[in-house]
């Protein structure tokens, strides 16, 4: 039983860390599948975290227990709109997509901190009063072993994230919309010839990534961080980007990669309590996700094929 107990503890905290990564990575999949590199996932998460926290602080007396969910929705909408900046620059103005993404990261942090100073007159916001709470799933949590591991003490957002991954898979691979989105990322000219609006599809792809990045950021902020400061989102966006690539640009792959990275992150935190990991310096746990991503890219863990025209601006009429 000892092992199961430890395992369920690690799993529990891994899922908490993985949930925001799953959302954001799924967003990344949509954007990159449509052919737009999104280094700005970090910035989109920052925006989501900022909006989620501010909305929560402002309206928690109005909405009561529903506040985190509504704040989450607000973060989704604002981040989707914010991602339009990246879309406009990299699709319409043919900016270098990586550079534009880097600028998104600067801009989100700048705006977030500027407004925090402006509205709260200090470097970070107060702690929110209505965070997400973990809960047990009724009925299912009575199943022996599995019930304890998967259905007690989890956050509803985690189930949402996993469901969202399957939904994303369905949308991308089983609907005409998904086919169009993918075709725009593979061969935009062929798609254009077939009457698909390349620019429109790419805008949609980037905006979905904005929405999901905002979702991820707000969930992280309202589950783990509980306030907004310059250090609230610290690399989670880049880890999500790694999950996109590690998962080979596939929603379910991204889901698996995000859970794996969640594991790695939680291991670095809980490893001190676990007998056989006690002696491993935490630095190895901390760098594991990044080292593994590099190894994966180098082809040691199966070659990752990016969408064909990823990173290239589509110029109508160019051959």
């Amino acid at each position, binding site marked *: 039983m000892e092992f199961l107990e430890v395992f369920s503890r690690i799993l529990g905290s891994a899922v908490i860390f993985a949930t925001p990564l799953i959302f954001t990575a799924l967003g990344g999949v949509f954007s990159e599948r449509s052919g737009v590199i999104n280094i700005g996932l970090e910035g989109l998460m920052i925006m989501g975290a900022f909006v989620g926290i501010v909305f929560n602080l402002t309206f928690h007396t109005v909405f009561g227990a529903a506040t985190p969910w509504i704040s989450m929705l607000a973060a989704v909408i604002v981040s989707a709109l914010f991602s339009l900046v990246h879309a406009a620059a990299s699709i319409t103005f043919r900016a270098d997509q990586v550079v534009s993404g880097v600028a998104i990261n600067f801009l989100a942090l700048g705006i977030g901190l500027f407004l925090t100073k402006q509205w709260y007159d200090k470097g970070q916001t107060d702690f929110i009063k209505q965070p997400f709470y973990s809960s047990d799933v009724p009925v299912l949590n009575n199943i022996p072993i599995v019930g304890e591991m998967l259905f007690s003490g989890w956050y509803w957002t985690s189930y949402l994230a996993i469901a969202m991954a399957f939904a994303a898979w369905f949308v991308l691979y089983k609907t005409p919309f998904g086919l169009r989105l993918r075709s725009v990322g593979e061969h935009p000219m062929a798609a254009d010839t077939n009457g698909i609006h390349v620019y429109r599809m790419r805008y949609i792809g980037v905006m979905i990534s904005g929405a999901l990045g905002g979702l991820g950021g707000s969930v992280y902020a309202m589950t783990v961080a509980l306030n907004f400061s310059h250090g609230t989102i610290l690399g989670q966006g*880049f880890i999500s980007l790694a999950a996109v690539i590690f998962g080979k640009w596939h929603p379910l792959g991204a889901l698996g990669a995000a859970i794996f990275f969640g594991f790695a992150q939680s291991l670095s935190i809980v490893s001190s309590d676990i007998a056989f990991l006690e002696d491993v310096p935490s630095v190895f746990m901390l760098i594991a996700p990044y080292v593994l991503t590099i190894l994966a890219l180098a082809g040691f863990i199966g070659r990752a094929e990016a969408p064909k025209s990823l990173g290239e601006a589509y110029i109508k009429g160019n051959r």
Partner: protein
Amino acid sequence: MFSNRMINILIPVLSVILGLVAGAVIMLVFGYNPLDGFAALWKGAFGDSYFFGETIRQVTPYILSGLAVAFALRSGLLNIGVEGQVFVGWLASVWIGISFELPMVVHLPLAITAAAFAGAAWGFIPGLLKAKLGVHEVIVTIMMNYIALYVSNAVIRSLLTDGADRTENIAATASLKSEWLAEMTFYSRIHYGFIIAIAMAVVMWFILNRTTKGFELRAVGFNQHASNYAGMNVGRNIITAMVISGAFAGLAGAMEGLGTFGFMSIKSGFTNIGFDGIAVALLGANTAVGVVLAAFLFGILKIGALNMPTEAGVPTELVEIIIALIIFFVASSYMIRWVLLRFKKEGK
């Protein structure tokens, strides 16, 4: 009316103007007086010799990180890993600085060289992966940034100290600090590193424009296939570019380690020297002169901004927004070019 060359100069200038105008608009929207805001910024950067010293201090690493990004970009590589290369350079320089007792003529150059080598090694890995396996350097360098951050922290905590949050101060023989410069500027943290930064700008110009290797590096940046056809070893050039770029970045770290701080502490996040270097390089159009000018601009903005809350009540972070917008405008040069060419047509 607008030649190509002129447009290339106009784009960064217009981007800066647009960025500043946007900053002014934001100040207006939030009820500040933009003139007060910019006046405070100007005073914060040049108001007295202390501020001026601090501005130069800030410009120094920016020049080097800008050169790092620009050098790689000239070979067609986007080195987002400057941040991590700065970290390892900083760590290496401090490591040498605290663990040896040598005369200054040996110690200081040794510490600086170590930083350059550390940065170069950190740049070598993504370069090698790109050259041999075709792995995209952007993702690898991002990952290397985090590895550098956590490894440096671990080294400081467990190798250089006994669980402390910062290393001891480096020996005076490894320091770039300058008594008379500091005295002249009311004890700002200005240091001799500035000379190194300028020298490196000259080195970059020389390598790229006056040597065969530089010609090859630029050729690979323009067209890999053509370079390959002309008998150049594309892979080796990619690795060389990343190694030199990493060395510049490592030196930027040495500026912080040997000049500004004289120690290294545990960091919870990035210093942003590397990320700001991307902005510097882009604005400087990837040329040595451009990078130096752009580094000055961003150094002035960053240091000047610190004075904005006290004198004009404007939050410092406004400058981050302005810098982000400047990058957007430079990156979206297609838009500016399009507008300029429209004017040109109508002018006829």
